[in-house]
């Protein structure tokens, strides 16, 4: 079945069965490989994308539920000033180790900063707790969020 998806500002057609998670429509049907598969049950956050600006776990979001909503992935998040700023902070502090979780981390961080421009540590804990980093780069993720929000930061 064909689903028309608005991804990163372009309407694309994904030929998948109803019930297919958005993650696999993006990855296997549309070749958008930035969102990652880590757990399949919304435990790790590696697949995080934005749907109408909200962070969503694509691995448990059926493609049928997306409708005409705007999907933004790590490939498109740099299109906003904020997204680009977050990516730059991530690069400047060299947050990543293996880097596999970082697309999801950046998507969650950008969503946080959209509604909370100067997050406290508690805000960061709450917003980022759904994103696992197996390499445990949490110290730098926190620092990069602060850097992107113009707050004092330590690595």
């Amino acid at each position, binding site marked *: 079945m064909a689903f028309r998806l608005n991804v990163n500002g372009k309407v694309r057609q994904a030929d998948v069965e109803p019930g297919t998670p958005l993650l696999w429509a993006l990855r296997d049907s549309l*070749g958008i*490989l930035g969102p990652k598969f*880590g757990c399949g049950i919304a435990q790790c956050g590696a697949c995080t994308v934005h749907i109408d600006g909200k962070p969503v776990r694509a691995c448990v979001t059926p493609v049928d539920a997306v409708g005409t909503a705007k999907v933004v992935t790590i490939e498109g998040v740099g299109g906003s000033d904020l997204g680009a700023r977050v990516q730059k902070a991530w690069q400047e502090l*060299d947050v990543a*180790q*293996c880097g596999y979780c970082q697309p999801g981390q950046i998507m969650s961080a950008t969503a946080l900063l959209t509604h909370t421009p100067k997050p406290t540590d508690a805000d960061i*804990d709450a917003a980022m707790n759904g994103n696992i980093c197996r*390499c445990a780069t949490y110290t730098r993720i926190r620092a990069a969020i602060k850097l992107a929000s113009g707050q004092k930061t330590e690595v």
Partner: protein
Amino acid sequence: MADGSVSGASRRQFIQMTAASGGLMLGFSLAGKGEAASAATPINAYVSLGTDGLVTIVAKNPEIGQGIKTSLPMMIAEEIDVDWAKVRTHQADNNPTVYGRQFAGGSMATPMHWDQLRMVGATARALLIAAAAKAWGVSAADCSTTPGKVVHKASGRTATYASLAARAATLTPPEPKSIRLKDPKDYRIIGKPQVQVDAPALVTGKPLFGIDVQVPGMLYATFEKAPVFGAGVASADLSAAQAVKGVRKAFVVEGETNLSGLLPGVAVVADSWWQARKGREKLNIRWKAHQTASQSTAGFNAQAQALSTATPLRTERKDGDFASAIKGAARTVEAAYAYPFLAHAPLEPQNCTAHFSAGKLEIWAPTQNPEAGRQLVAKTLGLKPDDITIHMTRCGGGFGRRLANDYMVEAAWIAREAGAPVKLLWSREDDLRHDFYRPAGWHYLSGGVDATGQVVAWRDHFVTLTDGSGKPASSAGMSATEFPARFVPNYQYDLSLINSGIPTGPLRAPGSNALSFVIQSFIDELAHAAEADPLAFRLKLLGDQGKVGSTGQETYDAGRMRGVLKAVAETSGWGKTKLGPRQGMGVAFHFSHMGYFAEVVQVTVSPKGQVKVDKVWVAGDVGRQIVNPAGAINQVQGAVIDGISAALGQQITIEHGQAVQGNFHTYPLLRMASAPPVEVTWVMTDNLPTGLGEPALPPVLPALCNAIFAATGQRVRQLPIDLKAV
């Protein structure tokens, strides 16, 4: 002449090797889009110079998050004398003929390559100088370099490396003895924090990982193996799976009995991974009975308990007379310690893409150990190793899991059977239930201190798992030189074995990740028995010795360990910090992977037994040079939090010969809100620079447990930590 060129639709590079006097020369040009389009001239196997001034340096080893794709090329770039901004790195394929061993393990890459790769860079620089000297008719000895240029000071002439590359490539490399390496005080790249080379691609979601590989005409596969390790397939409803939309083929893989080989299972190949997974759900597999089904964690625990009081299988080390010494000790302690199986759980599930065509196999794999994979695939599929090409992708974590190549041999087999390129991808459940686990183990300890607070007697009856060989299973052993052997006059290490069919293997800091918990916790018990300060007690145990260890034994430099212990005492404010109620600090040290680490943990424990790690202080000694300080601190912070994560919540439990935990809700990884600040201090000593992937991890577990004791009086003797409420 050897020909290392490989063909393939998606192959981006063309490699040609020619034997030249003075050693192998490898030429390669990069012809793919986005890569150096201008003609690049190879200077040696690692370095090529573009006419645009860019320098391409081969990254030889697998990148698993340890930063090696950046730090090894840094060593080369430093000695060539180029601007790091002009350097591009290029991931090598598996090619041990040219690059030697290419693996990620044991924190070995830095010590193995420190001299070798600096020499590669310095040799390239010498060739460029020779080319300039020849062109100018001057002596090479009168020429020097500034980044990217050869300079003849007397005449003021300069020439860019790019302009000299073609001539340099024709020259015979100089004798290694004639090469002089840079004085470290002149370093411009090494020792300066460098952002990792893949950072721009990582933050924008570019396809870098194994799971991102795409090959024209590629199909997707799932592979289901028996929940009981190694059990065979009795029956499967292949036609039901094949009836699912998109499924091309479902078939049984007979496999082997060797747990490190191709195991039996059922493959489903489809147009997309989700379809393959849907097909898999219809398989209704019945598995053959298997002897491992009788094994369980509870059973192993009971066997260990029974063995603890029996005569040990054998004595691995005996110094002095433990039995007499313990009788004469002023204070004695007995304790039983245990730790569970652990999974590696790299965030990128196991995957591999393979394409079998005309008798040749091309593989794209996130692997820590590509050559071992090639040999396994060759043996299993009956191919010549030379007919197998392995492209190394970036790995979404490794932690030792991808030293085994089970997923590679599965992908290769399935691709040949499917007759098309296939990407095999495991689910998280496949990953946690089909690991080579950090083995569970049991230690029954007795120790004694004399009236001065010196440890005089130590006995460890270590009960561990064996695969039936009579030796400990993979990563289940303990060296006879493990600390505190050689530091306690009456020391005895006895060993008993339990038969196990559970696959085990190295997990980050293998051996040490469990042994440090046991040994450094028990030292803490002895310190408290002696009513001594735990840090001062440890310094006393280390004594005033220097290097300890005779020929054929691993050397333990007690001086370096005292150095990091004193440093961490300083940075943590040990003994000087005012602590609140149910707050405590613990200390531990450990030597592994050539690195010396001492760590202090501060915790606060709630009355309900919830542990909050307030902060961790680390002091590490890995020699005279930190190659990339930015990456190095990241590694240490990650290793420390990884250790805390394991201690606080992780265990794989075996029931009926199967792993119980299947995903992150039952196998929790530490999350943002629980991640403490980790302050890292380097103690620089004039020793070989060594690796950082592992050695910072082991001491944090006992430091944490010792801090919990300091805060609560509860001694943690079993992992994961499970405190009683007060």
